[in-house]
Protein backbone atom coordinates (compact mmCIF):
# COMPACT_ATOMS: atom_id res chain seq x y z
CA UNK A 1 0.00 0.00 0.00
CA UNK A 2 2.79 2.37 0.84
CA UNK A 3 4.81 1.50 -2.21
CA UNK A 4 2.70 3.56 -4.68
CA UNK A 5 2.72 6.56 -2.35
CA UNK A 6 6.48 6.22 -1.97
CA UNK A 7 6.77 6.01 -5.77
CA UNK A 8 4.65 9.14 -6.08
CA UNK A 9 7.00 11.02 -3.76
CA UNK A 10 10.11 9.63 -5.44
CA UNK A 11 8.84 10.56 -8.90
CA UNK A 12 7.92 14.02 -7.68
CA UNK A 13 11.32 14.60 -6.09
CA UNK A 14 13.18 13.23 -9.11
CA UNK A 15 11.76 16.03 -11.26
CA UNK A 16 11.19 18.73 -8.69
CA UNK A 17 14.53 18.81 -6.92
CA UNK A 18 17.00 19.18 -9.81
CA UNK A 19 17.15 22.84 -10.73
CA UNK A 20 17.99 22.27 -14.36
CA UNK A 21 14.69 20.70 -15.33
CA UNK A 22 12.14 23.28 -16.40
CA UNK A 23 9.05 23.15 -18.55
CA UNK A 24 8.23 25.94 -20.93
CA UNK A 25 4.84 27.53 -20.33
CA UNK A 26 3.33 26.45 -23.65
CA UNK A 27 3.57 22.76 -22.71
CA UNK A 28 2.12 23.21 -19.25
CA UNK A 29 -1.48 22.56 -20.31
CA UNK A 30 -0.51 19.25 -21.94
CA UNK A 31 1.09 18.13 -18.72
CA UNK A 32 -2.00 19.40 -16.92
CA UNK A 33 -4.44 17.17 -18.80
CA UNK A 34 -1.98 14.28 -18.48
CA UNK A 35 -1.96 14.74 -14.70
CA UNK A 36 -5.76 14.70 -14.59
CA UNK A 37 -5.82 11.59 -16.79
CA UNK A 38 -3.29 9.98 -14.47
CA UNK A 39 -5.38 10.68 -11.39
CA UNK A 40 -8.39 9.27 -13.16
CA UNK A 41 -6.46 6.07 -13.85
CA UNK A 42 -5.32 5.75 -10.23
CA UNK A 43 -8.81 6.28 -8.85
CA UNK A 44 -10.18 3.85 -11.44
CA UNK A 45 -7.58 1.32 -10.39
CA UNK A 46 -8.57 1.58 -6.74
CA UNK A 47 -12.15 0.98 -7.71
CA UNK A 48 -11.30 -2.02 -9.82
CA UNK A 49 -9.18 -3.45 -7.03
CA UNK A 50 -12.15 -3.12 -4.70
CA UNK A 51 -14.34 -4.78 -7.28
CA UNK A 52 -11.78 -7.51 -7.79
CA UNK A 53 -11.64 -6.80 -11.49
CA UNK A 54 -8.19 -5.31 -11.57
CA UNK A 55 -6.16 -6.07 -14.65
CA UNK A 56 -2.65 -4.69 -14.74
CA UNK A 57 -2.44 -4.47 -18.53
CA UNK A 58 -5.69 -2.56 -18.83
CA UNK A 59 -4.58 -0.28 -16.04
CA UNK A 60 -1.12 0.57 -17.40
CA UNK A 61 -2.32 0.94 -20.98
CA UNK A 62 -5.25 3.05 -19.73
CA UNK A 63 -2.95 5.40 -17.91
CA UNK A 64 -0.55 6.00 -20.75
CA UNK A 65 -3.04 6.01 -23.60
CA UNK A 66 -5.54 8.22 -21.79
CA UNK A 67 -2.83 10.76 -20.96
CA UNK A 68 -1.47 10.62 -24.49
CA UNK A 69 -4.85 10.93 -26.19
CA UNK A 70 -5.84 13.77 -23.87
CA UNK A 71 -2.70 15.67 -24.85
CA UNK A 72 -3.30 14.83 -28.50
CA UNK A 73 -6.89 16.08 -28.37
CA UNK A 74 -5.69 19.24 -26.72
CA UNK A 75 -3.15 19.75 -29.48
CA UNK A 76 -5.78 19.08 -32.10
CA UNK A 77 -8.16 21.53 -30.46
CA UNK A 78 -5.43 24.15 -30.46
CA UNK A 79 -4.64 23.49 -34.13
CA UNK A 80 -8.33 23.78 -35.05
CA UNK A 81 -8.66 26.90 -32.91
CA UNK A 82 -11.35 25.36 -30.75
CA UNK A 83 -11.60 27.11 -27.45
CA UNK A 84 -11.67 25.49 -24.01
CA UNK A 85 -10.56 22.03 -25.17
CA UNK A 86 -8.49 21.67 -22.01
CA UNK A 87 -11.59 22.50 -19.97
CA UNK A 88 -13.67 19.88 -21.79
CA UNK A 89 -11.03 17.18 -21.36
CA UNK A 90 -10.59 18.03 -17.71
CA UNK A 91 -14.35 17.99 -17.16
CA UNK A 92 -14.63 14.53 -18.74
CA UNK A 93 -11.92 13.13 -16.51
CA UNK A 94 -13.18 14.85 -13.39
CA UNK A 95 -16.65 13.40 -13.89
CA UNK A 96 -15.09 9.94 -14.07
CA UNK A 97 -12.96 10.66 -11.03
CA UNK A 98 -16.01 11.68 -8.98
CA UNK A 99 -17.96 8.62 -10.17
CA UNK A 100 -15.20 6.27 -9.07
CA UNK A 101 -14.54 8.26 -5.92
CA UNK A 102 -18.20 7.94 -4.98
CA UNK A 103 -17.98 4.19 -5.36
CA UNK A 104 -14.82 4.01 -3.27
CA UNK A 105 -16.31 6.26 -0.62
CA UNK A 106 -19.38 4.09 -0.32
CA UNK A 107 -17.22 1.03 0.04
CA UNK A 108 -15.00 2.59 2.70
CA UNK A 109 -17.94 3.99 4.66
CA UNK A 110 -19.63 0.60 4.54
CA UNK A 111 -16.47 -1.12 5.75
CA UNK A 112 -15.73 1.38 8.47
CA UNK A 113 -19.09 2.13 9.99
CA UNK A 114 -21.73 -0.26 8.89
CA UNK A 115 -19.80 -3.51 8.93
CA UNK A 116 -22.05 -4.82 6.30
CA UNK A 117 -21.98 -4.95 2.56
CA UNK A 118 -24.31 -2.63 0.80
CA UNK A 119 -26.13 -3.93 -2.19
CA UNK A 120 -24.14 -4.31 -5.33
CA UNK A 121 -20.91 -5.11 -3.52
CA UNK A 122 -21.49 -8.81 -3.19
CA UNK A 123 -18.70 -9.57 -5.57
CA UNK A 124 -16.01 -8.34 -3.17
CA UNK A 125 -13.60 -10.97 -2.14
CA UNK A 126 -13.23 -11.31 1.59
CA UNK A 127 -10.10 -9.66 2.88
Amino acid at each position, binding site marked *: *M*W*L*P*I*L*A*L*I*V*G*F*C*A*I*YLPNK*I*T*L*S*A*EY*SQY*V*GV*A*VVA*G*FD*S*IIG*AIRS*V*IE*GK*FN*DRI*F*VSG*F*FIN*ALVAALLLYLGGALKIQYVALAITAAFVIRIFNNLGFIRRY*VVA*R*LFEKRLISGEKT*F*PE*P
Partner: protein
Amino acid sequence: MMRMHVPLPKAQPWMLPVTIVCLALGMLVAFMLKVSAPKKLDTTNMTRDQLIALYAKEMSDHEQLLAEYEKLREKYDRMVDSATTDQKLRAELQKVIDDLRVRAGSTAVTGPGIVVIIDDTKLALQNPPDINVNPLLTHDVDLLQVVNELRAAGAEAISINDQRVAGSSAIRCVGPAINVNNKAVSAPFVVRAIGKPDVLYGAINMPFGILDQLRQMNTQVEVSKREKLTIPAVAVLPSIEVGTPELTAPAPPKGGE
Protein backbone atom coordinates in the same frame (compact mmCIF):
# COMPACT_ATOMS: atom_id res chain seq x y z
CA MET B 1 2.69 -5.27 2.84
CA MET B 2 1.44 -3.30 5.78
CA ARG B 3 -1.96 -4.09 7.13
CA MET B 4 -4.25 -1.15 6.65
CA HIS B 5 -6.98 0.09 8.89
CA VAL B 6 -9.27 -0.15 5.93
CA PRO B 7 -8.94 -3.77 4.91
CA LEU B 8 -8.34 -4.07 1.21
CA PRO B 9 -8.34 -7.28 -0.76
CA LYS B 10 -4.95 -8.91 -0.78
CA ALA B 11 -4.64 -8.25 -4.45
CA GLN B 12 -0.89 -8.27 -4.87
CA PRO B 13 -0.82 -8.10 -8.68
CA TRP B 14 -1.97 -4.48 -8.67
CA MET B 15 1.00 -3.34 -6.61
CA LEU B 16 3.65 -3.15 -9.33
CA PRO B 17 1.66 -1.38 -12.09
CA VAL B 18 0.16 1.10 -9.65
CA THR B 19 3.66 1.86 -8.35
CA ILE B 20 4.94 2.47 -11.86
CA VAL B 21 2.01 4.69 -12.72
CA CYS B 22 2.36 6.59 -9.45
CA LEU B 23 6.01 7.21 -10.28
CA ALA B 24 5.00 8.66 -13.64
CA LEU B 25 2.22 10.68 -12.07
CA GLY B 26 4.56 12.13 -9.46
CA MET B 27 6.91 13.19 -12.22
CA LEU B 28 4.05 14.82 -14.14
CA VAL B 29 2.87 16.73 -11.08
CA ALA B 30 6.43 17.91 -10.45
CA PHE B 31 6.64 19.02 -14.07
CA MET B 32 3.57 21.19 -13.53
CA LEU B 33 5.36 23.02 -10.74
CA LYS B 34 8.50 23.46 -12.79
CA VAL B 35 6.85 25.61 -15.43
CA SER B 36 9.40 28.23 -16.28
CA ALA B 37 8.61 31.91 -16.26
CA PRO B 38 6.27 32.92 -19.09
CA LYS B 39 7.91 33.79 -22.35
CA LYS B 40 9.16 37.27 -22.84
CA LEU B 41 6.54 39.50 -24.35
CA ASP B 42 6.62 39.06 -28.10
CA THR B 43 5.49 42.34 -29.62
CA THR B 44 6.26 41.44 -33.23
CA ASN B 45 3.03 39.49 -33.72
CA MET B 46 0.79 41.91 -31.87
CA THR B 47 -1.88 43.94 -33.60
CA ARG B 48 -2.01 47.70 -33.42
CA ASP B 49 -4.87 47.60 -30.88
CA GLN B 50 -2.98 45.19 -28.67
CA LEU B 51 0.07 47.40 -28.79
CA ILE B 52 -2.02 50.45 -27.96
CA ALA B 53 -3.59 48.62 -25.03
CA LEU B 54 -0.16 47.49 -23.88
CA TYR B 55 1.15 51.02 -24.15
CA ALA B 56 -1.83 52.39 -22.23
CA LYS B 57 -1.32 49.82 -19.50
CA GLU B 58 2.38 50.57 -19.21
CA MET B 59 1.65 54.27 -19.13
CA SER B 60 -0.91 53.88 -16.35
CA ASP B 61 1.58 51.75 -14.45
CA HIS B 62 4.09 54.49 -14.96
CA GLU B 63 1.63 57.09 -13.66
CA GLN B 64 0.93 54.95 -10.63
CA LEU B 65 4.61 54.59 -9.88
CA LEU B 66 5.09 58.32 -10.25
CA ALA B 67 2.22 58.95 -7.83
CA GLU B 68 3.77 56.46 -5.43
CA TYR B 69 7.11 58.18 -5.75
CA GLU B 70 5.47 61.51 -5.03
CA LYS B 71 3.76 60.10 -1.95
CA LEU B 72 6.96 58.56 -0.66
CA ARG B 73 8.84 61.76 -1.18
CA GLU B 74 6.20 63.69 0.76
CA LYS B 75 6.45 61.12 3.52
CA TYR B 76 10.21 61.48 3.49
CA ASP B 77 9.91 65.26 3.71
CA ARG B 78 7.49 64.92 6.62
CA MET B 79 9.87 62.58 8.38
CA VAL B 80 12.75 64.99 7.88
CA ASP B 81 10.49 67.72 9.22
CA SER B 82 9.53 65.83 12.33
CA ALA B 83 13.07 64.67 12.92
CA THR B 84 14.29 68.22 13.13
CA THR B 85 12.37 69.65 16.03
CA ASP B 86 14.62 72.55 16.83
CA GLN B 87 12.93 75.31 14.85
CA LYS B 88 15.94 77.58 14.49
CA LEU B 89 18.28 74.79 13.49
CA ARG B 90 15.62 73.58 11.14
CA ALA B 91 15.27 76.93 9.46
CA GLU B 92 19.03 77.15 9.03
CA LEU B 93 19.22 73.66 7.64
CA GLN B 94 16.31 74.35 5.32
CA LYS B 95 18.10 77.44 4.00
CA VAL B 96 21.23 75.38 3.37
CA ILE B 97 19.20 72.67 1.65
CA ASP B 98 17.31 75.19 -0.48
CA ASP B 99 20.54 76.88 -1.56
CA LEU B 100 22.07 73.54 -2.41
CA ARG B 101 19.01 72.52 -4.35
CA VAL B 102 19.21 75.69 -6.40
CA ARG B 103 22.89 74.99 -7.04
CA ALA B 104 22.27 71.34 -7.87
CA GLY B 105 19.36 72.17 -10.14
CA SER B 106 16.91 69.88 -8.36
CA THR B 107 14.30 72.64 -8.02
CA ALA B 108 12.82 75.24 -10.32
CA VAL B 109 13.99 78.79 -9.59
CA THR B 110 12.23 82.11 -10.00
CA GLY B 111 13.83 85.52 -9.96
CA PRO B 112 15.11 88.46 -12.01
CA GLY B 113 17.69 87.95 -14.70
CA ILE B 114 18.42 88.19 -18.39
CA VAL B 115 17.45 86.34 -21.53
CA VAL B 116 19.98 85.80 -24.32
CA ILE B 117 18.65 84.61 -27.65
CA ILE B 118 21.23 83.27 -30.08
CA ASP B 119 20.25 82.22 -33.57
CA ASP B 120 22.33 81.00 -36.48
CA THR B 121 23.46 83.49 -39.09
CA LYS B 122 20.75 84.19 -41.64
CA LEU B 123 23.18 83.25 -44.38
CA ALA B 124 23.65 79.83 -42.83
CA LEU B 125 19.89 79.26 -42.79
CA GLN B 126 19.82 79.66 -46.55
CA ASN B 127 22.44 76.93 -46.77
CA PRO B 128 24.32 78.32 -49.80
CA PRO B 129 26.06 75.58 -51.76
CA ASP B 130 29.41 77.28 -52.26
CA ILE B 131 30.00 78.51 -48.69
CA ASN B 132 31.11 76.44 -45.72
CA VAL B 133 28.35 77.24 -43.24
CA ASN B 134 30.08 75.56 -40.33
CA PRO B 135 31.65 78.74 -38.89
CA LEU B 136 28.32 80.51 -39.26
CA LEU B 137 26.41 78.08 -37.04
CA THR B 138 26.10 78.29 -33.30
CA HIS B 139 28.16 75.57 -31.67
CA ASP B 140 28.26 73.84 -28.32
CA VAL B 141 31.44 75.72 -27.50
CA ASP B 142 29.68 79.06 -28.02
CA LEU B 143 26.95 78.06 -25.59
CA LEU B 144 29.55 76.80 -23.11
CA GLN B 145 31.28 80.15 -23.25
CA VAL B 146 27.99 82.00 -22.72
CA VAL B 147 27.20 79.79 -19.72
CA ASN B 148 30.69 80.26 -18.40
CA GLU B 149 30.43 84.05 -18.70
CA LEU B 150 27.04 84.08 -16.95
CA ARG B 151 28.38 81.94 -14.11
CA ALA B 152 31.37 84.20 -13.71
CA ALA B 153 28.93 87.12 -13.40
CA GLY B 154 27.14 85.36 -10.55
CA ALA B 155 24.19 83.72 -12.28
CA GLU B 156 22.37 81.49 -9.82
CA ALA B 157 20.44 79.38 -12.31
CA ILE B 158 20.84 78.99 -16.07
CA SER B 159 18.76 77.22 -18.67
CA ILE B 160 19.13 76.65 -22.39
CA ASN B 161 15.82 76.14 -24.23
CA ASP B 162 14.17 75.07 -20.97
CA GLN B 163 16.94 72.60 -20.14
CA ARG B 164 18.42 73.55 -16.80
CA VAL B 165 22.19 73.84 -16.87
CA ALA B 166 23.32 72.46 -13.52
CA GLY B 167 26.62 71.14 -12.24
CA SER B 168 25.87 67.75 -13.72
CA SER B 169 24.79 69.09 -17.12
CA ALA B 170 26.84 68.49 -20.21
CA ILE B 171 26.61 70.67 -23.32
CA ARG B 172 27.68 68.62 -26.29
CA CYS B 173 27.61 68.78 -30.05
CA VAL B 174 25.44 66.02 -31.59
CA GLY B 175 25.43 66.69 -35.30
CA PRO B 176 22.81 69.25 -36.24
CA ALA B 177 21.64 69.79 -32.64
CA ILE B 178 23.25 70.35 -29.27
CA ASN B 179 22.61 68.08 -26.31
CA VAL B 180 21.94 69.68 -22.96
CA ASN B 181 21.26 67.16 -20.19
CA ASN B 182 21.15 64.56 -22.98
CA LYS B 183 18.17 66.35 -24.53
CA ALA B 184 18.62 67.75 -27.99
CA VAL B 185 18.10 71.49 -28.32
CA SER B 186 18.48 73.49 -31.51
CA ALA B 187 18.62 77.07 -32.68
CA PRO B 188 17.31 79.56 -31.76
CA PHE B 189 18.92 79.06 -28.37
CA VAL B 190 17.17 80.87 -25.56
CA VAL B 191 19.54 81.16 -22.63
CA ARG B 192 17.89 82.29 -19.42
CA ALA B 193 19.93 83.27 -16.39
CA ILE B 194 18.76 84.31 -12.95
CA GLY B 195 21.01 86.79 -11.19
CA LYS B 196 21.41 90.53 -10.83
CA PRO B 197 20.16 91.68 -14.27
CA ASP B 198 22.51 94.66 -14.59
CA VAL B 199 25.57 92.65 -13.65
CA LEU B 200 24.66 89.82 -15.98
CA TYR B 201 23.81 92.20 -18.80
CA GLY B 202 27.10 94.04 -18.47
CA ALA B 203 29.15 90.87 -18.21
CA ILE B 204 27.62 89.12 -21.19
CA ASN B 205 28.02 92.24 -23.38
CA MET B 206 31.64 92.70 -22.37
CA PRO B 207 33.71 94.06 -25.28
CA PHE B 208 35.54 91.21 -27.01
CA GLY B 209 33.39 88.86 -24.94
CA ILE B 210 31.62 85.86 -26.36
CA LEU B 211 28.57 87.74 -27.63
CA ASP B 212 30.82 90.28 -29.26
CA GLN B 213 32.60 87.47 -31.10
CA LEU B 214 29.30 85.93 -32.16
CA ARG B 215 28.03 89.24 -33.45
CA GLN B 216 31.16 89.61 -35.53
CA MET B 217 30.25 86.29 -37.16
CA ASN B 218 26.87 87.89 -37.97
CA THR B 219 25.16 85.54 -35.54
CA GLN B 220 21.81 86.96 -34.48
CA VAL B 221 22.10 87.79 -30.79
CA GLU B 222 19.52 89.45 -28.60
CA VAL B 223 19.91 90.24 -24.90
CA SER B 224 17.15 91.57 -22.65
CA LYS B 225 16.74 92.08 -18.91
CA ARG B 226 13.72 90.55 -17.21
CA GLU B 227 11.96 91.32 -13.94
CA LYS B 228 10.93 87.77 -13.38
CA LEU B 229 12.13 84.53 -14.90
CA THR B 230 11.36 80.93 -14.08
CA ILE B 231 13.96 78.29 -14.74
CA PRO B 232 12.95 74.62 -14.51
CA ALA B 233 14.65 71.92 -12.49
CA VAL B 234 16.82 69.24 -14.05
CA ALA B 235 14.39 66.54 -15.17
CA VAL B 236 16.50 63.61 -14.03
CA LEU B 237 19.40 64.19 -11.70
CA PRO B 238 22.09 61.54 -12.07
CA SER B 239 22.57 59.47 -8.95
CA ILE B 240 25.81 59.47 -7.03
CA GLU B 241 27.21 55.99 -7.57
CA VAL B 242 30.88 55.90 -6.76
CA GLY B 243 31.55 59.02 -4.70
CA THR B 244 31.15 59.12 -0.93
CA PRO B 245 30.48 62.46 0.72
CA GLU B 246 33.13 63.34 3.31
CA LEU B 247 30.74 64.72 5.88
CA THR B 248 33.07 64.86 8.85
CA ALA B 249 35.65 67.60 9.01
CA PRO B 250 39.08 66.37 7.91
CA ALA B 251 41.39 65.52 10.77
CA PRO B 252 43.97 68.22 11.48
CA PRO B 253 47.36 67.29 10.11
CA LYS B 254 49.68 65.88 12.73
CA GLY B 255 52.86 67.84 13.15
CA GLY B 256 56.34 66.34 13.07
CA GLU B 257 55.60 63.58 10.66
